[in-house]
C-alpha cells in the first residue's frame, strides 16, 4: 500500500494530509516534533482543532512528538524519547514552517553582542513572561514584526523600525545594518548608500524575509528527491495556510495522474 509522509502538523501540513487522504487511497502519516498539532498557530486555535478532527476522520495517522531527522532511500528517520523509527514512505511532504532570515542571510555585520534574537525566539520569550528591552529595534517587516511591535509596546518599550515599518514608534531609513556593542547591544549603524545613520537601541529582533525552515537531511533543497515542499512564505492565517497545503497536495495528485 502506498504511504505518504507529511512532516509538520501546522495548518499547512494538516491541510495537505487531509487532501492526500481524501484524494488518494493511500495511507497518510502526519508527523510533528511537538506532541500536539497546530505548529506555530497553536493547538487550541479553533480551525486547527477542526482540521485535526477532519484528519483523524479521513484516516490520517498522527505521529506526534517525534523529530524527523533524515530522509534517505524512501525512509524517514524519526527520533523521539520513545526511541528511533525508520518510517517507510513513497513520498515526503515537508511542511516545516518558516523562520526569520538570520544575520548572515541579511548581511548584518559588526559585533556579536548579547541581545540579538530571532523574532520566533522573542515571541516565545514574551509569551513566557520574559521581560525584554526598553528600546528594541525590529529589523525587517515580515509576518512577525507588527504583532511583536504591538506586544513590546504594550509592555512599555519604545519600538524602533527601519524603512516602511509603520508599526514603529520611531522609524529610520532602511539599509545595511552594522551592530554596535561589545557586551550588550548598544546600537546600530545603518548604511544607506552614501549615508550612515546611527541608532541607539538595547535589543535587536530579526523579523525580516521569512525563509523556509528546513532541517531534515535529504530534504533541504527544492530539488530533493521524493520530496514536495509545503512551505508558503507569504500565506498568513490558519484557514489560508490549510487551503494552501491542500492545494499543494491536489496539484501533486494531479501531476501523478498525468505522469501515470
Amino acid at each position: 500500500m502506498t504511504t505518504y509522509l507529511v512532516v509538520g502538523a501546522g495548518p499547512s501540513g494538516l491541510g495537505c494530509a487531509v487532501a492526500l487522504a481524501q484524494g488518494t487511497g493511500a495511507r497518510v502519516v502526519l508527523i510533528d516534533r511537538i506532541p500536539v498539532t497546530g505548529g506555530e498557530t497553536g493547538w487550541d486555535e479553533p480551525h486547527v482543532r477542526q482540521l485535526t478532527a477532519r484528519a483523524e476522520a479521513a484516516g490520517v495517522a498522527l505521529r506526534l512528538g517525534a523529530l524527523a531527522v533524515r530522509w534517505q532511500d524512501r525512509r524517514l528517520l524519526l527520533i523521539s524519547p520513545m526511541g528511533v523509527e525508520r518510517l517507510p514512505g513513497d513520498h515526503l511532504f515537508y511542511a516545516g514552517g518558516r523562520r526569520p532570515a538570520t544575520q548572515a542571510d541579511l548581511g548584518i555585520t559588526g559585533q556579536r553582542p548579547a541581545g540579538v534574537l530571532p523574532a520566533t525566539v522573542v515571541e516565545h520569550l514574551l509569551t513566557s513572561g520574559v521581560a525584554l528591552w526598553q528600546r528594541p529595534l525590529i529589523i525587517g517587516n515580515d509576518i512577525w514584526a507588527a504583532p511583536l511591535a504591538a506586544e513590546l509596546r504594550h509592555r512599555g518599550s519604545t519600538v524602533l523600525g527601519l524603512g516602511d515599518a509603520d508599526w514603529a514608534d520611531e522609524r529610520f531609513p532602511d539599509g545595511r545594518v552594522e551592530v554596535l556593542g561589545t557586551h550588550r547591544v548598544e546600537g546600530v549603524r545603518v548604511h544607506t548608500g552614501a549615508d550612515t545613520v546611527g541608532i541607539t537601541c538595547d535589543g535587536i529582533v530579526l523579523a525580516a524575509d521569512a525563509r523556509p525552515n528546513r532541517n531534515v537531511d535529504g530534504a533541504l533543497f527544492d530539488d530533493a528527491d521524493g520530496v514536495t515542499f509545503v512551505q508558503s512564505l507569504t500565506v498568513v492565517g490558519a484557514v489560508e495556510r490549510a487551503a494552501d497545503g491542500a492545494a499543494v497536495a491536489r496539484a501533486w495528485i494531479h501531476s501523478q495522474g498525468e505522469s501515470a
Partner: protein
Amino acid sequence: MSPRSDYDVLIIGGGVLGTAVAERLARTETRVGLVEAENDVAEHASKGNAGVAVSYYGAPGTLETQLINTSAPLWEEVCARLDVPYRRIGGVMVALDAAEAERLEHTHQEVLACGVAVQALDARQVLAREPLVTPHAVAGLLLPDEGIVDPMRLTAAYARLAATNGCDFRFAERVVGIERDSDEVLAVITPTSRLTARFIVNAAGVGAAGISRIAGGEPLVSRPRKGQYAVVDRAFGQRLSSIVFCTHLPDTKGTNVVPTTHGSVLLGPTAQDIEDPDDRATDAETIESVVDRAARLVPEVRDAYIMKTFAANRPAGDEQHRLRFDTKVPNLLHCTDRSAGVSISPAAADYTLGLLREAGLDAPDRPSAQRVLPPVPRLRTSEHPERLIAENPSSGMVVCACEQVSSAEIEAALTGPVPATSVEGVRKRTGAGYGRCQGSLCLAGISFMTAMNTGTDPATVMHTTRGTVGS
C-alpha cells in the same frame, strides 16, 4: 613547598593553553588554580579559530615546531580521552599559478625539514584527492597528518578534567594587580580576591603583555590580530573531504577552506592588526573578500549557504611563541602562542610541567588522578541512537533540530565541573544553536534550560558570557 600559598601554581587565562596546562598539572601532586576574566573558558582566540590540529606550521628547529611534532601523533588518544571530536582528514595546499607553485616548493622543503609527512601533487592528483578544488590548481602538497578538532570542546574538556582532578577555577576574576616580594610574584589580585602562589603561568593570550607589565616582568608585545570568518552549511561540508589550504604567503598563512567537526566549513581567517581586544566586528567588505579568496580555492563555496559570519582576535606579537620563564621575574612563566595554541596544547602542557619541575616545583604524577572524561552520548554522531535513547529518553528529546542536539547533551553541558553558565556556553559545548537557523527554533528553550540550571530568571540569564538574554 611553602604551606602558606593558596596555590603551588596559579594559571592566568582559561584559553586552550591555560586549560591544557591546568589539566596536566591537576594530574600531579600540585595545588593548581586558574583565574579567568570572562565567566567561561574558551572565549576569545580559543573560541574563534579554525580548529585545525596542524602537523606543520612553520620553520624547523623552533620550540613551536617541536611541540607540534610531539602533539601531532597524540590527537586520536588525547581526544578519545577527553571526549572531543577529532578527525585526521589531511590537508591539501594548493598553488594557483607558477609563482605560487614556486613558493609551494619552498614550503615543501620546509615541511620535509620539519620531519613531517608530505607529498607533492601535480594538478591531476590535487583534483583526485579533493575534487572540489578549482581545476585551475597547478600543483599541490598533501599533508596527510593534518586533522580537525573542535577547539571549544577541547578547551572545555581540558577544564572539566582539570576541575575533576582538583584544579580550582575562578571565573569573572580579571587580574587587576600583582603583588611582588623582592623579585618574585607573591600574589595575584582580582576585584574580589588576593591569591598567593609559588608560580604564576601567564596564559592570558592577547592579554599576556598586560599581565607581564603589571607583574614587573619583561616588556612583551601582544596585540590582537583580528580574523574574520564565514561558516558554510553542513549540506556543503559533507561533500568536502580535506582541509584546503592556500599557498602560504611570506607574511601570513592566508585564507583557507576548513571542514569542522560539526560538518560545516569555515572560510578564513583574515589577518588585521588592531588595538582594541574587544573589537570583534565583521565588515561587509572583508567578509566578501574572505568568500572571494575561498572561492579561488574551492569555487563551489560561492553558491553554498553561509550560516554565520564572525571575527575573533588571536595574539600577535614580537615572538611567535613564548613558553619560558620571564627574564626578570623568576617565578613567572609565559605560556602563549600566536595562533597554534590548539595544535601545540597537548605537548605544551607536558613541556610547561617540565619547566616548572626544573624550577623546583615538586610535582610527582598522581596515579589515582582521573585521565579520562566520561563521554557524553551525542545523538547526531551516535552509531546506535536506539541504545542511547533506551538508556536515557532525554537523548531522544531533540532541542536543536538543525544540529540534532538532545536535551541530555544540553543537560550534561549545564551540570558537572566547569559547566556552561550561558546560552553561548551551551553552544560551545554542544553546538546547539550553531546550525542553519541560528537558533530561531531552539534559543528560547536553551535559555530556559540555562536559567533553570543556573538558578536565574530567564530574563537575566546570560546569553553570551557578558550579556543577558533579556532586560
